[in-house]
């Protein structure tokens, strides 16, 4: 008898608990997004080292996002395995809109395309909120380099190009250039962009790819000289520097290799969440992100930490961008695996 009472009590309490939890979830789901976010804590994951440009941009975005949503973001830098651990954690997070992240998304996408160990996330499934900055890759040479034209590069023997950050954006762009122009060159991968820039200033290497804003800073410091921009048209940041297309007319197959880097893959710093964030909350976050991007104080502050232009790409455009890129994953991976094996091993 007592056992029956005990069991009944447990059942009733369990049901009551489920009802309470369920109703609070239902309540949260029914809440307007603006009310939902007000006073909430957002777990903000940055898969970069503190002080990194991506980290600094994210910290500025977080400050203004909190201002418009009324939430409080708690930033965590989770950068193990080149940031893959942070992205994996975000990918697996509960899709309630209270876990967000921001990083250089091209780096993370390339890691997925090349099937780098440790990558468990799928870029195309992330909930894209907004693109913050976008930039192109610029090729620079040493300040006193004799290379003035593409013909000079092609004629050079034992050219050494520098990259950084493992087999990622800058490395793959170097490999693409070597293959497209038929250069007699090899690639050295430095641990950081700082060491890479120093190597160029020292004359240890002859050229490197970097984001336009970072390359411009290096040129202003006298550490390098800008050569060309890898884009369909000239960059507004360095309008005097020509594009690769202006300097050389490549055969169709070689032009196709460079087209990926000129039009489909460029430096992007994007805000996103795990897959499956409810539509209303995602729309709200996109709307708030758009407000942040238009805030004059935000623009002034972002300029202090990054010279990269602010982006015009919305969350839905980012979805299409990464979707179409990942659709070509097999083709891109095959090409670059071949180039890696040819030039790096």
């Amino acid at each position, binding site marked *: 008898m007592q056992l029956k009472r005990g069991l009944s009590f447990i059942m009733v309490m369990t049901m009551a608990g489920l009802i309470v939890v369920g109703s609070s979830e239902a309540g949260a789901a029914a809440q307007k997004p603006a009310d939902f976010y007000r006073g909430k804590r957002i777990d903000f994951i940055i898969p970069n*080292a*503190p*002080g*990194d*440009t991506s*980290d*600094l941009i994210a*910290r500025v975005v977080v400050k203004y996002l909190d201002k418009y949503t009324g939430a409080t973001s708690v*930033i*965590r*830098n*989770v950068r*193990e*395995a*080149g940031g*893959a*651990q942070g992205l*994996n954690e975000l990918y697996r997070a509960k899709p309630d809109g209270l876990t967000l992240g921001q990083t250089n998304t091209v780096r993370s996408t390339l890691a997925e395309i090349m099937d*780098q*160990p*440790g990558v468990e996330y799928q870029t195309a499934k992330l909930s894209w909120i907004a693109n913050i900055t976008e930039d192109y890759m610029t090729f620079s040479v040493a300040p006193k380099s004799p290379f003035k034209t593409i013909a000079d590069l092609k004629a050079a023997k034992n050219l*050494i190009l520098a990259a950084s950050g*493992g*087999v990622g954006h800058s490395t793959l762009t170097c490999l693409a250039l070597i293959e497209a122009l038929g250069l007699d060159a*090899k690639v*050295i*991968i*430095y*641990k*950081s962009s*700082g*060491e890479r*820039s*120093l*190597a160029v*200033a*020292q004359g*240890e*290497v002859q050229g490197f790819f970097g984001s336009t804003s970072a390359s411009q*800073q290096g040129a*202003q*410091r*006298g*550490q390098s000289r800008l050569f060309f921009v890898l884009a369909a048209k000239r960059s507004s940041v360095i309008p005097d520097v020509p594009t690769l297309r202006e300097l050389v007319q490549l055969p169709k197959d070689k032009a196709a290799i460079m087209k990926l880097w000129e039009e489909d893959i460029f430096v992007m710093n994007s805000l996103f969440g795990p897959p499956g964030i409810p539509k209303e909350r995602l729309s709200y976050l996109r709307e708030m992100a758009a407000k942040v991007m238009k805030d004059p104080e935000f623009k002034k502050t972002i300029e*202090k*930490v990054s010279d990269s232009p602010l982006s015009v790409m919305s969350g839905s455009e980012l979805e299409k961008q990464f979707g179409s890129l990942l659709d070509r994953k097999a083709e891109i991976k095959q090409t670059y695996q071949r180039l*890696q094996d040819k030039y*790096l*091993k």
Partner: protein
Amino acid sequence: MLEALVAGAVTLLQPVVLAGMFLGIIVGLVVGILPGVGPLVLYSLCLPYVYGMKPEVALGFMVALGSVVSTAGPVTAALLNVPGETSSAAAMQDSFPMTQRGEAGRAIGAAVFSSMVGGVFPVFIAMAMIPVMIPALLLFKSPEKCVMVLVGLSFLATLASRSVYKGLIAGMLGMLLAAVGFQDQTGTARFTFGTVFLHQGIPLTALALGMFGLTEILDMYVEGETNIAKSLTEEISGVLDGIKDVIRHWWLCVYSSIIGYIVGIIPGIGGSVASWVCYGHAKMTSRHPEEFGKGAIEGVIAPEAADNAKESGALLTTMAFGIPGSSSMAILLGAFVLLGVTPGPDMLTTKLPLAFTLLLGVAFANIVGGAICLIWAKQLCRIAFVHVDFLTPAIVVMIFVGAFVGTYSIISVLTAIAFGLLGYCMKRLEYPRAPLILGFILGGMFEYYLSISLKVKGPLFFLTPISLIMIAIIIALYGYSYLRTVRKKV
């Protein structure tokens, strides 16, 4: 330049800047004593709070904070055999044995005072070097860095106290462990067993904390010891004796500081190289090399001076080039950018007063921080007499937190435990642990710079003036050490 120096000094003496520095000193000292929590973690935690502050105040705070961490770290190393920073592990070989024989005050006095000298003296070298900073830094390319690391590796055998062969085996094991992780040059994952954790390699902090801290705790319990210090042989005058030892060995302190400073200005080498190279060099040139590893005072003075000296070198490189001299400087560089100060040649020209404010701030922080540590040394020494049943839980917690903080992964804690067990086995079998740490730190670095040097210059990459001078110095040192050994036997 003199006007800029005066302007920089005047800025430093502003009450708000001094207040920022004092706050940085206190935070740096308190947290610096905790093992595993070095400038890297501190800077990451403080970065969000400096945003919006005046650059002189914010940067003064951060520079002071980073400067005194290297001053406080030796205290934990000496008292508990737990390195506050991994670069304190070199001095720990002798400061902890000193504590065990009841000379904790002398060990702390020597460690802190030599750290102070190492933190202050190179500041003046840095200021004098400003006009030639950029051309000097451009001379150290990958081949020179490779040879520099090789010089460090050549001290592997020196670190072995009884058997050179055991020292070399331990060193080679360290180099093998350094191979774990993602190889940047070829994009190959080595010995990661498909885990994300090992992708970045074995974390050095967890390895060092386990191998030194946990091993000693295990050893104490197995041996049935009740206190760290086996006897009391000194009153508090021990601290003053330690300071006098540094003054007596002033030349060792000065040139160790110079070596540490040079290593600091070269990006990518790291402070641990300077500590271990100076330790090995001090042992080779000592009149009593057999005392090293058992409580030789030179084994405390040399590495501590070198370890702290690197900070001003790394700061100068970060300011002058916008290239961080170390991983903690990378975060400081972020702070510069966040505060609207663009590092680069402008810092050595138009913004020279700010550069001087920060360099003088390093010296100021070291003097004040070191003085506070020395004043509190008497109280801190009493830790060595606390019963192990009360002390070890606290030490174990500190070790686990220190290991966790590096990667925010529980696997780091398990790594520390695993290396604690390995370190205990090594101690029992009389294999020295110091060469393993040195091999681990330098093995990966050597492979990195060797692969770049071979690609850039080919197999004869070492035929550069600076590399040849370093090779000649090391041959001369070993030759001198060998001749001295032969003369002793005769």
